[in-house]
């Protein structure tokens, strides 16, 4: 890729970041949701612990675990919604006509949004988790969570791109996204570490990208990491490659038999 070509995709990232900064309402909404979720679950786990019921880990660590998983998930912009809407409105006809790779441009747009969301939501996560627990995990753990969490968010964005491409055939990808959310919840260990789930779920999760997206990066704050940083990096690279291959294959299919809405 030449510098001029790279500059095009940087420009897509920059303009979507600009839009996210100038229209921050969605970001504010996510931040508010974050505060509520962490407030509710920190109270819940404190209550469970005080009642003498067994927990997967120390309640304070669990709050930080949830802060990390939610930060990763909420930072990833749901670009499939915009892709679907552009297909429905027919605006996609412009995007397909530009002298750029459509999928790379859409991904670049997503990364621009991610670049704005991740820092704000990261600060929200840190402040809220600290406010609710009066404790912080070791700095080393946080320094590992941040880059891996950002990489996982970028991979989730790419997976949303794949879901969005399905709109060329399905028109409405909401059911696919619904299934995706449930899988993230269970196989990704969104609320609780995977160790507390039945063994068959843990075994099934190994064959999916979900643990590498949420549970593994977040579990560094627990002190009992699901994977070593090396294994997690390898998994993220492998799943990124698989996603890139899948997206590229899907788009080739789109190009060969697309029927754009609006005639």
């Amino acid at each position, binding site marked *: 890729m030449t510098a*001029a070509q790279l*500059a*095009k995709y*940087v*420009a*897509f990232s920059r*303009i979507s970041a*600009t*839009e996210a900064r*100038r*229209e921050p309402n969605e970001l504010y909404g996510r931040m508010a949701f974050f505060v509520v979720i962490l407030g509710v679950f920190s109270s819940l786990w404190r209550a469970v612990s005080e009642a003498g019921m067994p927990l997967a880990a120390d309640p304070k660590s669990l709050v930080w675990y949830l802060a990390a998983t939610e930060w990763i998930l909420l930072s990833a912009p749901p670009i499939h919604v915009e892709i679907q809407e552009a297909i429905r*409105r*027919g*605006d996609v*006809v*412009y*995007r*397909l*006509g*530009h*002298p*750029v790779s459509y999928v790379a441009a859409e991904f670049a747009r997503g990364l621009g949004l991610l670049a704005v969301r991740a820092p704000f939501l990261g600060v929200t996560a840190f402040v809220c988790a600290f406010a609710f627990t009066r404790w912080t995990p070791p700095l080393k753990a946080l320094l590992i969570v941040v880059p891996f969490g950002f990489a996982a968010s970028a991979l989730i964005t790419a997976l949303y791109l794949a879901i969005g491409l399905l709109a060329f055939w399905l028109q409405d990808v909401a059911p696919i996204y619904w299934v995706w959310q449930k899988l993230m919840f269970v196989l990704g260990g969104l609320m609780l570490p995977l160790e507390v789930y039945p063994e068959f779920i843990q075994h099934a999760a190994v064959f999916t990208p979900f643990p590498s997206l949420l549970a593994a990066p977040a579990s560094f704050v627990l002190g009992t990491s699901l994977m070593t940083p090396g294994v997690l990096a390898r998994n993220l690279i492998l799943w990124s490659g698989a996603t890139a291959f899948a997206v590229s294959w899907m788009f080739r299919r789109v*190009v*060969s*038999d*697309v*029927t*754009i809405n*609006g*005639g």
Partner: protein
Amino acid sequence: MPPHAAAVELNQLSKSFRVKATRSGAGSVSAVDKLSFSIAPGERVAFIGPNGAGKSTTLKMLAGILQPDAGEVRVLGLVPSRQRRQLAFRIGTVFGQRSQLWYQLPPRDTFELLGRVYEIDPFEHRRRIGILSSVFALGALVNTPVRHLSLGERMRCEIVASLLHAPRMLFLDEPTIGLDVSAKATIRELLWTESEREGVTLLLTSHDTGDMERVCARAIVINHGRLLWDGPISALRQSYLKAKRVTLWSEAEHLDLTLPGVRVLSSSAYRTELEIALEITPLGQVVDAALRQAAIRDMAIEDAPLDEVIRTLYAAAPRESEPS
């Protein structure tokens, strides 16, 4: 592109879409069927057809967005389906009901993005934005968020966005749809001016005959994906105009013009409006008949509106069952 080569050349171009099987067993619908025509550089051509005639599908194939099933197509010497990105640098597209502007941002941000996308030299890009903003009278609009623009203002910005990279060919799909009379007139005037100024070839689809008449000199009419007519708009009128409308203001209060092929559209004191089928009764005979009854104070002769001509053209074309 070699000198004197056509800007657009279609040869037996066909495209069909799969549809869900029906009881009759149909599995595909033909959108474009062996369509052939060519357009010279700098021409302004109206591409006309009723809804579902295949206009937009043809435009998308010309822009390389859709792949044809059969036939050949060349735009500015390139094959769109194989050289889409190369072609994208030389063509512009405007789709009336679609938008390439970032809705929450001022048009200037989209213009900056397009400068990168089309790899325009920054100095040249600023110069183009300045010139086009002036020609299209954008003024403060370039710094106003798109969501605050009226449809007409937005459409002017859309056209500027499509012209920033100085395309040699501009495809316009219903660029004035939904606009009020004044905004339509502005867009037509600007398109004509810009095409004249920069020698841009225009291919314009529209249901609005005003767009065609004021911007284009030539019309290509299709229906059911097939070519019905290709020639000057003036010739389109002459070929399909079977009647003229004549209004007579006479000294007599009423005229009795019962002649074959003459229909009285309205009659009031001293004024008679007629529709005359010229193939049956020449205009001169009708005027002679009127003069025999009374002196004529004034007379107006009008062609039927282009809308009517086109309707006649569609009606004259053989209809076929759509699914194949």
